[in-house]
């Protein structure tokens, strides 16, 4: 133990002696780890956020498609669905998108009956009349529409409509509520110009979760133009979307990884004449091959672990304190409006371990292997170069 502490001390002193080189490697290494960590943290956090959202999602959503595209669904479908055995509550949902030219952002406009328990009011209450609305934190921030103020939006007839903001939302996930404008069902029908017998989709509760697929099949049989979407399908789709997006980003960052690999390869294929001579000197004055390898191992590990933790912390800060400013628009992707999007810090220990293994191990190996080649050579030969 004493011996290794002394060797670690000497390794630290060696790294400080080559401080500019060590610093440059730490910067390059940390950047690579930070880039990878940012993508993985953001993807994981988004997936977890999405899973929070879908935890309270209905068992089944029924949409209507025409020519493969989503269409408004007749509200009388709900009655037929309600009569299917095993089906609990069934209700029509009214929602759509609204492009706000003023802020150049898309809002999600959602109709509620005033009893939505998946969204928690941060401030105020749900709308009760057609002239009232509640908004997500992002919308409120963009339109300066805090509680007790007015929000003016342009309806489907191109007429400005004034809504009283009666609440600002928060939710388990800002992913869901950030871009919301919530109106009453009647309010949204007027505002977006829904035909009187149409809704956006129908949500269905199924008493026994094992029967969701059976109910979905029955709905499909009753209404061939309907598309029943189960909760598990939704979760799987979002997982795939995030995996695809993170895969794209990892591909982009593979350039950084490649650059780092070249650096590691450069180290692995040879050590400097100065380092070689130092190994020769150490061997000549009584250091064993294992002592030299221990020295190089600690040097590599100190650099790699320092870089790894700096990279992980930078990635963590980037994603969770700076809201993934560099990556968010690419990975989140589907909406224009994500101001002040804030993710709850989530870390997957397994991912961090794998990332550590895939970055620290190659670097340490690339430090030790060339040193090993020099350390097993006669000290005289190594010193002479």
């Amino acid at each position, binding site marked *: 133990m*004493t*011996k290794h502490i*002394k*060797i670690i001390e*000497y390794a630290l*002193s060696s790294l400080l*002696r080559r401080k500019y080189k060590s610093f440059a490697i730490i910067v390059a290494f940390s950047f690579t780890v930070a880039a990878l960590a940012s993508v993985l943290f953001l993807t994981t956090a988004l997936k977890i956020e999405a899973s929070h959202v879908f935890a309270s999602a209905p068992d089944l959503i029924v949409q209507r498609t025409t020519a493969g595209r989503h269409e408004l669904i007749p509200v009388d479908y709900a009655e037929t669905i309600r009569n299917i055995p095993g089906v609990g509550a069934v209700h029509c949902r009214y929602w759509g998108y609204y492009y706000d030219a003023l802020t150049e952002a898309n809002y999600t406009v959602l109709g509620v009956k005033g009893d939505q328990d998946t969204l928690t009011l941060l401030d105020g209450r749900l709308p009760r009349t057609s002239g009232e609305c509640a908004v997500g934190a992002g919308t409120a921030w963009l339109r300066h529409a805090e509680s007790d103020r007015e929000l003016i939006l342009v309806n489907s007839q191109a007429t400005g409509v004034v809504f009283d903001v009666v609440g600002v939302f928060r939710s388990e996930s800002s992913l869901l509520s950030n871009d919301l404008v919530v109106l009453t069902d009647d309010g949204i029908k007027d505002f977006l110009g829904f035909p009187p017998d149409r809704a956006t989709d129908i949500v269905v509760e199924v008493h026994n979760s094992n029967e969701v697929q059976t109910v979905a099949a029955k709905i499909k049989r009753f209404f061939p133009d309907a598309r029943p979407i189960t909760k598990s399908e939704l979760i799987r789709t979002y997982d795939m979307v995030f995996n695809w997006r993170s895969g794209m980003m990892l591909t982009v960052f593979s350039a950084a990884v490649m650059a780092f690999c070249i650096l590691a390869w450069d180290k692995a294929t040879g050590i400097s004449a100065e380092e070689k*001579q*130092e190994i*020769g*000197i*150490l*061997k*000549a*004055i*009584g*250091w*064993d*091959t*294992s*002592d030299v390898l221990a020295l190089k191992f600690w040097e590599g590990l100190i650099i790699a672990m320092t870089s790894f933790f700096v990279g992980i912390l930078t990635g963590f800060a980037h994603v969770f304190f700076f809201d993934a400013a560099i990556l968010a628009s690419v990975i989140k992707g589907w909406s224009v409006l994500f101001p002040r999007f804030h993710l709850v810090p989530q870390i997957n220990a397994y991912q961090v371990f794998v990332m550590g293994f895939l970055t620290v191990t190659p670097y340490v190996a690339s430090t030790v292997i060339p040193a090993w080649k020099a350390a*097993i050579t*006669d*000290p*005289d*030969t190594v*010193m002479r170069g």
Partner: protein
Amino acid sequence: MPDELTALNGISVEIERGRVTVLKGPSGSGKTSLLTLIGCMSRPTSGRIFVDGKDVVKLPERFLTGIRRKKFGFVFQQYHLIREVKVLENILLPLYPLTMKFSSMKERAMSVMKQLSIEEKQHFKVKQLSGGEQQRVAIARAIINNPEIVIADEPTAHLDLKLAGEFIDILRTLCGEGKSILIATHDPFVYDHAMVSTVIEMRNGRVEEVRVK
């Protein structure tokens, strides 16, 4: 093989314990090669080397390291100090792989530095020292393990007469402590010195003459 060079050939010498032995000869005569073989820093393609009666040529590397650590102290021609490192750390280097407490290591280093009058330079980097001071640091590093044999390769090559004289004084002290000294040199100031007991004259990789004073 056409590219192979025979550095040493047909050599048979014996280095006496507790004496000063000099390998004398012009550059390229094989002095340094012989020193590195004796010091277990390289292996001969053929032949045998006995240290304390034990043939070391066939020994695995880890045993040679042990012999280098316990038996030999080297003072290289170019000193081979680590220039960016402080004097104290350079001197302590041979002790790092040992299971010795840092306080004991430092105590021993202070004693050696005092013996060589370089204790005031302990916090200087090697590159800040003069040639003579660097050589003392190299000697201090060579003897900190209390080796039985001190090997010095062209120790006066970079020293003026005064410093060379001081070096000889140090060797004389070491010899007085019972250490064997083996020096490779072509400097008459060294090989003609009274303290030298044996002069082995080399030329073209062979021993020309062994002169015992």
